[in-house]
């Protein structure tokens, strides 16, 4: 994942996007797999990638933009070094997910959909991780964490700030 503030050359984006697309064009309905792969490549979906994707799939720029903007997963700017997703759905609410969220927000001094000023973490709400029998739950990058409490939050903070 790209740290925030990294400048990527436009020509470079186009070339790297084209390389990514090449491995997916044989699929039926390849747009979502391509966007996932582009995000994997750059850490977000650069605006400069869209015309390249649109051209390759014979769709308009507007259609490509429409798909990117529809889905919560696709980022339009780089995230922090870590992404912390806190589940805010009902099962986690019943176990105090709002208190955990408040604790995390205060500690990092940011709200949901924001990145800490030092670029260490982006905080996001998520609506269900399927860990509802061990709520409240979170996902730090790709690691799942259940039964969040103050101690677990401290561990997450230490991991993020390392």
């Amino acid at each position, binding site marked *: 994942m790209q740290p925030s503030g990294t400048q990527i050359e436009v020509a470079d984006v186009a070339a790297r996007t084209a390389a990514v697309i090449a491995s997916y064009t044989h699929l039926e309905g390849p747009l979502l*797999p391509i966007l996932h792969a582009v995000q994997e490549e750059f850490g977000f979906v650069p605006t400069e990638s869209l015309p390249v994707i649109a051209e390759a799939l014979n769709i308009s720029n507007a259609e490509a933009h429409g798909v990117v903007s529809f889905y919560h997963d696709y980022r339009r700017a780089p995230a922090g070094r870590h992404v912390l997703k806190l589940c805010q759905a009902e099962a986690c*609410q019943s176990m105090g997910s709002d208190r955990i969220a408040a604790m995390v927000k205060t500690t990092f001094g940011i709200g949901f959909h924001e990145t800490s000023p030092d670029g260490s973490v982006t905080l996001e709400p998520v*609506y269900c991780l*399927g860990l509802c*029998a061990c709520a409240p739950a979170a996902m730090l990058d790709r690691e799942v*964490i259940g039964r969040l409490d103050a101690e677990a939050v401290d561990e997450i903070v230490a991991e993020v700030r390392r």
Partner: protein
Amino acid sequence: MTPVIYIPKDSGALALGAEKVAKAIEAELKARGETARIVRTGSRGLYWLEPMVEVLTEKGRVAYGPVTAKDVRSLFDAGFLSGDQHHLWLGKPETIPFLAKQTRLTFARCGITDPLSLADYGAHGGLAGLRKALAMTPTDIVKAVTESGLRGRGGAGFPTGIKWKTVLDQVAERKYIVCNADEGDSATFADRMIMEGDPFVLIEGMAIAGIATGATKGFVYIRSEYPHAVAAMQAAIDIARKANVLGTAILGSPNAFDIEVRVGAGAYVCGEETSLLNSLEGKRGIVRAKPPLPAIQGLFGKPTVINNVISLASVPVILDRGAEHYRDFGMGRSRGTIPIQIAGNVKHGGLFEAAFGMTLGEIVEDIGGGTATGRPVKAVQVGGPLGAYFPPALFDTPFDYEAFAAKDGLIGHAGITVFDDTADMLKQARFAMEFCAIESCGKCTPCRIGSTRGVETIDKIAAGVEPAKNLALVTDLCNTMKFGSLCALGGFTPYPVMSAINHFPQDFAPKPMAEAAE
């Protein structure tokens, strides 16, 4: 004999430290110079006991849990490789009441076998359904599924066999089987558990669906919030392909069927079948108007079976043991078993597969053991974010599609969230509207605009602004959303909202003056 140690690799177990436990056990074995075979399994679904580690000894399988990394040394000291006593000793897993009371048909292997061992799968009854299907005509397979009484486990409860029949009757050069694994409802994790714990059963179910309807291509659309399920399905499909369970000659027969995993992108509405089809096609996940039915014009305009994970994963056992065997479980028009997911503020949370017909009270109090906090139960939400909140006064409602509908609720994907008496039902009603606003695809007005107006109006009630008038407005708005929305997102959001208002009116009443003055 070399002892075998089973450690779950299910996301729920991982979230509770199963990886650290596995590492500690490996290190301890090495330090002691002992040998044991470690098998990573799915979860048995007893999440308050996870990570639950099992050891195969001469006395059979013995379980210990919940195990943390720091317990590992004392487990070895106590002789856990021989199944000896320890304060985490649980005995034979099948004798734990939570498991002993279940009827596991769909989840028969989950937590027991190595999810990625086809040999294990076969040794525990896997592929028997597919073999029988290969010897049957498509019409007879569809007939068996219809006669089993299986209804869509995603929530809508539409008879699976009738869907299959419609696709079978279509003449087309290409047909699809789409598995809806976009399990977005809070309190549900049955799909995730099957994909992580017994992925071959889903593959087998999809292959049978393909043979029955003449479809040769399948897609599993898995939500991106489930990276472990995505990895497990992908690995299982690769193994199945190499072993000719998938491919151009299924188990040596002339039937062809292959599966591709697709990953969602964080849109709840893509769990709605037509929205999911658009997403698979690479479009915005906007709901389609029906008709045309997906069974006639579905993915890329071709006839498509679109079923939930659990519906498809229940097919192999139906074909293997016969429609009657499955149909004999259950009550009324709800036949077979249902994997109930008990979640939220509950003492014994987990997966409980049972025949339809248990009462909600039995599930929450007897099986779930009441709240985790030890406080009284205030409400249980059944069926995810679009399901109604039930008060304990309705705990005699049997778990059955029609019985829940009669009480203005739904069983949905069979997830149950328990709340204790600290829950504020106005806040829950507000959240239902807010969630609908966040996740609305935007196609129809009642859902797109109604949800936002709903949040605003509930906020006014909370602030004490003309509460009676605004409550009437919310009720009217819910009526419009229920009957005017294109799909279940806008159409069912009124269930949690209205049930909160009707069953917990005190939470919507103006706050007493003394409290307001504070």
